[in-house]
């Protein structure tokens, strides 16, 4: 996978859970109401569903933003290694 597309994919994947979390933070009441209605339609108690959603968003944000940062810093600080790899391929 090309470096630019890799960075773009990680950026989008980290932005999606982060923006959902920010929306929940900003419009807490409305979003909790929506999540509760989704959990009712799925027949899952809201007391379990909301914390589960928060934990999943937390892990997704952390994992993808870490991968994004790692890829960006590696591409900026280790240009020699990158050059070697592209020469080999």
């Amino acid at each position, binding site marked *: 996978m090309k470096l630019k597309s890799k960075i773009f994919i990680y950026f989008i994947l980290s932005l999606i859970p982060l923006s959902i*979390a920010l929306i929940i*933070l900003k419009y*807490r009441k409305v979003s909790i109401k929506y999540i509760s209605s989704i959990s009712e339609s799925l027949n899952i108690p809201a*007391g379990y569903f909301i*914390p589960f959603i928060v934990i999943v*968003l937390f892990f997704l944000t952390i994992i993808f*933003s*870490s991968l994004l*940062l790692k890829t960006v810093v590696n591409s900026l600080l280790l240009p020699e290694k990158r050059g070697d790899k592209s020469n080999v391929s």
Partner: protein
Amino acid sequence: MSVSEKAREVYLEAVREIRDSVPKIIINIGIAVLIWVFTKYIFVPISLGYQFMGIPLPQLISLVMLVAVAVLVLGIIREIFDIIDALAAYSAYELGARKGEVTDEELQNYKVGFRGIIYVIIIVLLFLLFKDFLDVFHPVLSAIVLIVVVLWSVLMLLRSGRAFSRIVEEYANEWADKLEERAKSE
């Protein structure tokens, strides 16, 4: 191997080590700060008032964050150990009593001196980073940790101060020897 050859090797190894470790440290610090910011300003406020399997969600998220950051910090500290040793070797080579020559004792003094100062800075920064999350568990916990940090920092700074004073002593001896030689030749 002569002293200057050994010093040159130590110097080259130090430069290689710095080049290798700095990107890894930047990545790990960046990830740790990112996790800390997201947890403190987004996920802990969201999770306030909720429980997961009987455990309050803010505490659970703080615990996950602490574990993740602790793992990253271990990686950072391992790299910093290498950098401190490299920095000490570089300083001994550049600033040593005899420029371009490094004795084992001199190198050891530089290592102890640098290690003490950098360890204290790292531990203080870590305490500032984790303080709020320790408060989430129990307010007394951060106070106890602070007392331990202060005592340990004093001991470490004393140790590195002694190491630097040995270096200064060596400098002074070298300078006195030079003066004595000059006086004899005149």
